[in-house]
């Protein structure tokens, strides 16, 4: 039993773990551990985990960074630049928080009443604020992966945007896996937007290629009444890296969210996204582009719950798989009984361009209200022959034509990203990815 190792670690280092951590995080730790102890990791005979063998991911003896040690980074600081875009930059190196926000910026944010920084620190400084939201959105009582995360969570990124405050510049959170040895990182982020607040977050996942890494990152996001939030994640990891965890969002009345997930280089990804449209007139757009080749494994499990009336959701995912890549998409849309006037639209389109690529898709509509407009579509196929011939007849080489068509295939999704500079950047990166050119972000140390 692979769980035993982690149970032993928890029991053995229990006091140390609690001693290192703020009270708020400790307060649910025991409860979460009990859930993990009882459930164990989800196995492949469970419907939602049929395509990802979670227990096997924990088989290498990673251990847990109980002492919350920072692995030192040599040389220049990380950069993950988007031309034409200035961001507030934060890091989570493995599972330890670091900031790269200068004094001026720091003060400007503080003046607006924005509370931000390390989850660990903020939980000590503002325990009441953190307690109100922490472990309230991600269901650690029913999901073993979240229970595991909650059991060992010590740090991560935190931001609180007060009522009617807009953070103009995007916040950039760079998750880096960096170590000279195999490493398991377990981090936890909490993002809170109060009524009428506005913020945009860009998340970049990177890892070094020399080691085996496993990250389990859980992000909870609370979007208050009429607040507007964007969350764009880009995964650009080495093949030997495994990422699990997910994003759990709760949206209040009239709030809007724009969530995207761009997987450029995966390794092994199991990503859960759960959006609860908890009050009326909330809207969300959830998008994903997943590019996989070699032995990449990309498994997205998404769940949008319409818990209130007059909400709207749009979900679009596209996969392009080559070589032996495996893609899996599950999209559950649940419309509760009194959620009238719901609009829910979901689409999953996939291209398999090699004999060994496999795609599994499972779009699901579960609808208990009647006054709804819901639809979903899913396709698995190849690049359209007619379009390919048309391009070739205009003198475009077959290879180039295929590239153009693959780009076009991903384009409508990338267009949904609401930060122009990022959108353009991602288009360039996707094209470079398809061309097999240097596709790493840019000067980022970790990616060289």
């Amino acid at each position, binding site marked *: 039993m692979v769980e035993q190792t982690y149970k032993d670690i928890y029991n053995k280092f229990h006091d140390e773990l609690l001693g290192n951590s703020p009270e708020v995080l400790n307060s649910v730790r025991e409860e979460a551990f009990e859930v993990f102890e009882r459930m164990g990791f989800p196995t492949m005979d469970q*419907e939602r985990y049929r395509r990802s063998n979670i227990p096997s991911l924990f088989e290498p003896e990673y251990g847990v960074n109980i002492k919350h040690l920072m692995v030192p980074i040599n040389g220049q600081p990380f950069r993950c630049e988007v031309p034409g875009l200035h961001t507030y930059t934060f890091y989570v190196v493995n599972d330890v928080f670091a900031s790269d926000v200068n004094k001026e910026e720091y003060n400007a944010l503080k003046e607006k009443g924005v509370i931000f920084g390390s989850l660990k620190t903020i939980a000590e400084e503002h325990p009441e604020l953190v307690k109100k939201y922490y472990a309230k959105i991600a269901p650690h009582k029913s999901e073993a992966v979240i229970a595991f995360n909650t059991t060992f969570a010590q740090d991560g990124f935190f931001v609180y945007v007060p009522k009617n405050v807009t953070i103009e510049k995007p916040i950039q959170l760079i998750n880096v896996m960096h170590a000279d040895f195999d490493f398991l990182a377990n981090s936890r982020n909490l993002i809170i937007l109060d009524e009428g607040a506005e913020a945009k977050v860009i998340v970049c996942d990177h890892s070094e290629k020399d080691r085996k890494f496993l990250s389990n990152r859980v992000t909870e996001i609370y979007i208050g009444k009429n607040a507007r939030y964007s969350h764009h994640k880009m995964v650009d990891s080495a093949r030997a890296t495994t990422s699990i965890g997910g994003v759990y969002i709760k949206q209040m009345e009239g709030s809007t969210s724009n969530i995207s997930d761009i997987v450029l280089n995966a390794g092994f990804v199991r990503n859960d996204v759960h959006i609860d449209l908890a009050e009326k007139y909330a809207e969300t757009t959830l998008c994903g582009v997943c590019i996989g080749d070699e032995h990449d494994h990309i498994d997205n499990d998404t769940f949008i719950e319409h818990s209130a009336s007059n909400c709207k959701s749009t979900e679009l995912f596209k996969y392009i798989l080559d070589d032996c890549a495996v893609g899996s998409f599950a999209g559950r849309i649940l419309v509760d*009984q*009194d959620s*009238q006037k719901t609009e829910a639209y979901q689409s999953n389109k*996939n291209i*398999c*361009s*090699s*004999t060994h*690529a*496999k*795609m*599994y*898709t*499972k*779009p*699901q*509509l*579960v*609808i*208990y*209200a*009647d*006054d*709804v*407009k*819901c*639809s*979903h*579509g*899913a*396709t*698995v*196929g*190849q690049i359209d022959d007619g379009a390919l011939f048309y391009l070739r007849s205009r003198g475009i080489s077959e290879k180039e034509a295929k590239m153009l068509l693959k780009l076009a295939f991903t384009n409508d999704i990338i267009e949904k990203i609401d930060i122009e500079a990022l959108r353009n950047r991602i288009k360039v990166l996707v094209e470079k990815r398809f061309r097999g050119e240097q596709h790493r972000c840019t000067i980022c140390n970790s990616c060289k």
Partner: protein
Amino acid sequence: MDIVDKVTNEDYKYGFETQIETELFPKGISEDIVRMISKKKNEPEWMLEFRLEAFRYWKTQEMPHWAHLSIPEIDYQDIYYYAAPKSESSKNPDDVDPELLKTFDKLGIPLSEQKMLSGMAVDAVMDSVSVKTTQQEALAELGIIFCSIGEAIKNYPELVKKYLGTVVNYTDNFFAALNSAVFSDGTFVYIPKGVRCPMELSTYFRINAKGSGQFERTLIVVDDDSYVSYLEGCSAPMRDENQLHAAIVELVALENSEIKYSTVQNWYPGDKEGKGGIYNFVTKRALCKGTNSKVSWTQVETGSAITWKYPSCVLMGDNSVGEFYSVAVTNNFQQADTGTKMIHIGKNTRSRIVSKGISAGQSQNSYRGLVKVTANAENARNFSQCDSLLLGDRCGAHTFPYMEINNETAVVEHEATTSKISEDQVFYCNQRGIKTEDAIGLIVGGYAKEVINKLPMEFAVEAKNLLSVSLEGSVG
């Protein structure tokens, strides 16, 4: 649109009970009961072994719970596994008990020579036994075998042995194992090489006895270059208790052959409070074994308290084609979890799925389907369209498609929509003087048209009527 329950529900018109003496085996299931059934039917030893093996397997299994259904606990020891009208002992087929003839007359299935429908041969099954099979002689002239499965086991053991259980093995699922152990009667069809069956073959299933379950078994084998169109109908009396129906249908299509299998499922759905009704747990599967073979399932599902049914096609032969056309209506407290599986194995195989769900009252209606393309199934094509229509704000419509694609030459497309019946359309009809009820009938008919049109004529009319009757009182 306000939901005003102003229309009085038309009673389930097939809900009467035939007063006839019934022979019953003791309640419950055991090896002894299985042996008794086999003995009663004078079965050969191999058939008994088939049953016992299945029974032993069944004992190790549990009820499946993955469907989107809430199934009350079923006491399998509180069911009669064999029930037969007493008069069945009469060996002369023309000498059927007049009470039974009357029953089937009332159901619209005349069995006597004078009244027999031309262009259709019927096997009438009540509870555990086949009462009468019509047109057998005319069919026999063409070499077509159309008889009860019991007779087939006796008269054509080699054919039955060759195909029985090859499409649905007893290990397939819980209900398949149960059926394989205790199946009573059902229909056997064999169409020899190069014969286009000139009439519709049909089986009408009737549950009559109280407290009994029906476990029929149908096996249809269509040899090279042949064709058959087969219809299945069913009904049961209105009772407060639930009754179990766990059937297996196996179809085998050989080279260049085609099977059209149509079902109008109208088991008693229970009353307006959700009391009573049939639990319909059925395994239907076709094996498109030969190249260029084709199987098309068409179903209109209006009855049953709970339906668990996935007529499927295993597309093994190159260029074989599978089709599934379904209209499933649920009203009041009915629950349905139905759909299909299309398993693409051969090259250039094609499948098409059209599913139209209609939910009303407090019912739950789910489409569940799998399209699987195996690694060697070059150039597989599938198109699925699954629509749900909601009438009323207490019902549910759910769609669970699964696509597992292991070959890059496949093109698989799934589309689904869920919406409420359009108010604009209803209003437009109203404005032209059509009352709401009729307008809904029109709109639902139009919505289900693509599927209804696939049914043979006689059935299409009945199906349309059934649709509007099933939905009566659902929208005011």
